[in-house]
């Protein structure tokens, strides 16, 4: 017996922390509406400070495992994300059209760009250290080489007013570029595409990515920004946006543990070396050359 169409099973959108899908510990929610209507489309979690701390803790626990992986392995996993994203295309497109009122064509292009980001950084994961590292011709009997290493635990935040069809690929590019070099990340999604947490989380959860490497939150930036910027175990913040007050706040609070605050304009190229280079530390190793 057929079930009426309005009785479909809607997806509960939860957080993505440590490879699991918990609700926010605070029990709070934010309602999302279908574009131009009062009809609730879905609820997303309004993550709390504690959720944020849990996410950072999960990423810290995953750090050693992920940075130890070979670049080739990270590349394979990133490419797997592109494959899984292709499988979630319909869902991502439908969220963009229903919530953000994007045309089907624009929505599909947005998803194309997100998938391209995964593919691009999959291809860069095992090359950028050749591009940015070197052997140093020091004047003495020493072998000295410099290689990029992941900076560690990164937090990513985005302006809420980035156009939604740009926001999805920017989120994908940010996450892919940051983890490509071996970093772990906690991201607070822009509010206009917060529902994309569901497909994105499923992509990360099914790509052989170790749990905790990527953690996704939804909530109010104003509520979480200070905690994120002053978290003593976060080494770097990626901010995509153009708000100078937000940048100043991140840099001022972040100075307590000398966080690297790396800012990108919303219209900056999502696929470039810059996005990898912003989240590495260069390590120079010396060894004598002798008999």
């Amino acid at each position, binding site marked *: 017996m057929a079930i009426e169409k309005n009785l479909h099973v809607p997806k509960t959108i939860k957080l993505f922390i440590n490879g699991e899908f918990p609700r926010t510990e605070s029990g709070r929610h934010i309602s999302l509406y279908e574009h131009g209507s009062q009809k609730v489309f879905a609820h997303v979690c309004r993550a709390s400070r504690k959720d944020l701390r849990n996410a950072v803790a999960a990423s810290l626990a995953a750090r050693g495992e992920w940075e130890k992986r070979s670049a080739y392995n990270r590349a394979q996993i990133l490419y797997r994300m592109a494959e899984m994203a292709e499988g979630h295309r319909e869902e991502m497109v439908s969220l963009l059209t229903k919530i953000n009122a994007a045309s089907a064509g624009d929505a599909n292009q947005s998803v194309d760009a997100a998938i391209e980001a995964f593919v691009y950084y999959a291809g860069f994961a095992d090359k950028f250290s050749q591009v940015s590292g070197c052997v140093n011709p020091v004047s003495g009997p020493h072998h000295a080489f410099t290689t990029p290493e992941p900076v560690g635990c990164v937090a990513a935040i985005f302006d809420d007013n980035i156009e939604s069809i740009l926001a999805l690929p920017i989120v994908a590019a940010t996450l892919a570029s940051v983890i490509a070099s071996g970093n772990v990340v906690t991201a607070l999604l822009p509010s206009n595409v917060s529902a994309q947490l569901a497909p994105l989380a499923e992509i990360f959860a099914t790509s052989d990515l170790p749990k905790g490497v990527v953690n996704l939150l939804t909530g109010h930036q104003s509520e979480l920004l200070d905690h994120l910027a002053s978290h003593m175990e976060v080494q770097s913040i990626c901010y995509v946006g153009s708000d100078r007050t937000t940048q100043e706040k991140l840099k001022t609070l972040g100075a307590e543990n000398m966080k690297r605050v790396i800012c990108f304009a919303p219209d900056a190229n999502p696929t470039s070396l810059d996005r990898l280079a912003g989240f590495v530390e260069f390590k*120079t190793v010396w060894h004598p050359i002798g008999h």
Partner: protein
Amino acid sequence: MTTKRALDKKSKAQAAKIAPVEKLPKQAKTGAMKFEYAPSLESTDIVRIEKRNRLFIGGKFIEPSSEAYFTSMNPATGERLADIAEAGDADVDLAVRTARKTYENVWSKMSGRERGRYLFRIARLIQERSRELAVLETLDNGKPIRESRDVDVPLVAAHFFYHAGWADKLNYAFPGQNVSPLGVVGQIIPWNFPLLMAAWKIAPALACGNTVVLKPAETTSLSALLLAQVFQDAGLPDGVVNIVTGAGATGAALVNHPDVDKIAFTGSTDVGKIIARAVAGTKKRLTLELGGKSAHIIFEDAALDQALEGVINGIYFNQGHVCCAGSRLLLEESIAEEFVAKLKKRVAKLRVGNPLDKNTDIGAINSAGELKKIKKLIQLGKDEGGEFFEPTCAIPDKGFYQRPCFFSNVSSSFTLSRVEIFGPVLAVSTFRTSQEAVLKANDTPYGLAAGIWSEKGAKIHKVAGQLKAGVIWANTYNKFDPSAPFGGYNESGWGREGGRHGLSAYLDVR
């Protein structure tokens, strides 16, 4: 036959070499063979120090509008060396405006090839005046002449020489991207390597096409002012490098000046944080080389005698006034006792005294304030229960001196293990596995450098990969080169200096 004869020859030569060594211990046992070094003082005739030293702005030495001067001491004697102009806000403003004008009218219009020529000339002039620079540096800073002569000044020349060649090749530094200079760069440098830090800052800034306002540390301004004379002699256009002497207020005026495009600072992490907050709301770029608490890991399979020399160099070089000093010694438990015994013997042989004496290993602490801070931390180490060792060697009556010393049986929670002492004080603890060594080494908010000693290559590479530090010295320590990027993780700073990577601190790369 030939081979056998060659071998015979070789073994005979070896035997000849070994023979006198065998005799030595016998004589030493009798106690009759105690040699004292005769003093071997470097002459200071080569240096002429002005009584009053003015600011260097627009290619000329000028009076500070503040008319204020402060005294710079010779830390080896505690006596007045010279008076130094204290730049006020108006002087800093003049220096920045001069640098801006020079950037726009002269320096940014010049070809990279021409800029490079000036840097090559500067490098050569430094080599020519090397003895004078070394003696002045030792007088003003207190570091042993052996170090200023053999390490600091040669590296200063090397830095200018290395960066000179980059000036017309910047397009090759970042292939596929466009580079342009930033504009006016404000640079604030510390007192531990006054001339070398000036070179680390100025050479890449000029090579990349920027103009500079440099503020030396207040206790060590003289060598930077002598460098200004070198710039004059090299014909460097007026206003490309401006030097404003002074203390914290002068530095703050530079950091907060609205027309500075970039700040580069080397110094303490505390001040680095203040600067980071000060520029947070501006478009100024910022690179920072800050403090450290670097771990020096000795595995049981290391060449222990070589490691011992590495440890000595790591912590006692430049009186321990080194941001990357190997101030935490981590010994594998199985060799800890033996190594500490060797360390005691070796530390007792270090010669503390007049920095102008060519036999001196450890010179003067740079200032009374620094000495007081070091003494306080040593007392704290004793109070916290560390096992203290200090040789009984004599030290001069006048001036600021601290004997090289170390604490053993130190745990990670001790202040000694956490705080940068910036003096000749080593904290020794032990580990059982390489995993524990890495955990302990990384257990610090800093991340500047680390040392590893082992004869096993695979182990070295594994541990080097796990250490969160910007510079790893394996089976060596405290090696520096203009072509090798230097800089730290975490609270040790932002960015790198030296090499291709150091250029990005002074370029807009798009």
